[in-house]
């Protein structure tokens, strides 16, 4: 139901990357929320590894495939639809949020300071909301 007449491989990789990214950020959110109740080194290590090994590569796949699709579908930047702009905005600002989250998770992993874990909770929640807006805008084709 997703795509009529759109290039298969770039769209598949774009959607798959986005879904894996959402799953990775959900994991990080759950791990950090668990740490609020029960601080454990296991949680900070797992959150950092999830961001580094799953979330960042998933972002790369999502963004590269999105760019591939953009060029295949012949968009030019002139009068691009709103949903595409929202996707770009969340994609590019999202990288910044993702890298800051990964950096703070590294600090949390090294220091085990509760405040670092709480910052990761906030950042991962913000990023999940951004991803939610992007998938709603892109799938609903907000004009």
């Amino acid at each position, binding site marked *: *139901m*997703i*795509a*009529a007449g*759109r290039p*298969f491989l770039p*769209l*598949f990789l774009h*959607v*798959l990357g*986005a*879904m*894996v990214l*959402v*799953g*990775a950020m*959900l*994991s990080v959110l*759950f*791990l950090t929320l*668990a740490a609020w109740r029960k601080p*454990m080194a*296991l949680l900070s290590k*797992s959150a950092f590894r*999830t961001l580094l090994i*799953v979330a960042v590569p998933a972002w790369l796949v999502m963004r590269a495939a999105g760019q591939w699709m953009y060029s295949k579908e012949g968009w030019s930047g002139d009068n691009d639809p*709103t949903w595409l702009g929202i996707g770009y905005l969340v994609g590019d600002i999202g990288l910044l949020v993702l890298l800051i989250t990964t950096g703070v998770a590294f600090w949390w992993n090294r220091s085990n300071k509760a405040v670092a874990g709480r910052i990761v909770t906030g950042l991962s929640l913000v990023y999940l909301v951004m991803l939610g807006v992007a*998938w*709603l805008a892109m*799938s*609903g*084709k*907000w*004009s």
Partner: protein
Amino acid sequence: MFPPVSTFDWLLMLHITGAFLLIGGSVAAGIFNTFAMRAERPSDTAFMLRMVRPTLPLIGIGSIAALIFGLWLVHEQTEVKLFSFWIVAALVLWVVMGALGSAGGKHQEKTRAVAERLAAAGDTSDDELRTLLHDTRGNAMSWLAGLAALLLLIDMIWKPGQ
């Protein structure tokens, strides 16, 4: 409050939201399962397998929403037939994914119960837990459910036979 969208786009948005919850939740469950398998102490294994629980409502709601809004989308489109190959394939994959995921979940629950027991009794692993953690058949159920979800996504985008 919301930008203007057609009924079709609303349904597509809700269908895809369901798919995001389903696959996002499954990815999160897979991540926790992987950490559980690699944990050194039974208490850590049990903890990570408990972390799978909050992903289950997301997977359940996502799979139901993807199915309902997907069928609604088929109903809305006159050019798409319910018995098209890709729709039937999607429905079969949806059932297979659910059945395999449920079987994999039962295996994880059994593993968690053993890990909890060992955690309470000195937190040292034993052969039973190691066997359960590396049981090919038990783990294959969860990974095959993930593969079915991946095939479902490919089917939805590729639409073979349409």
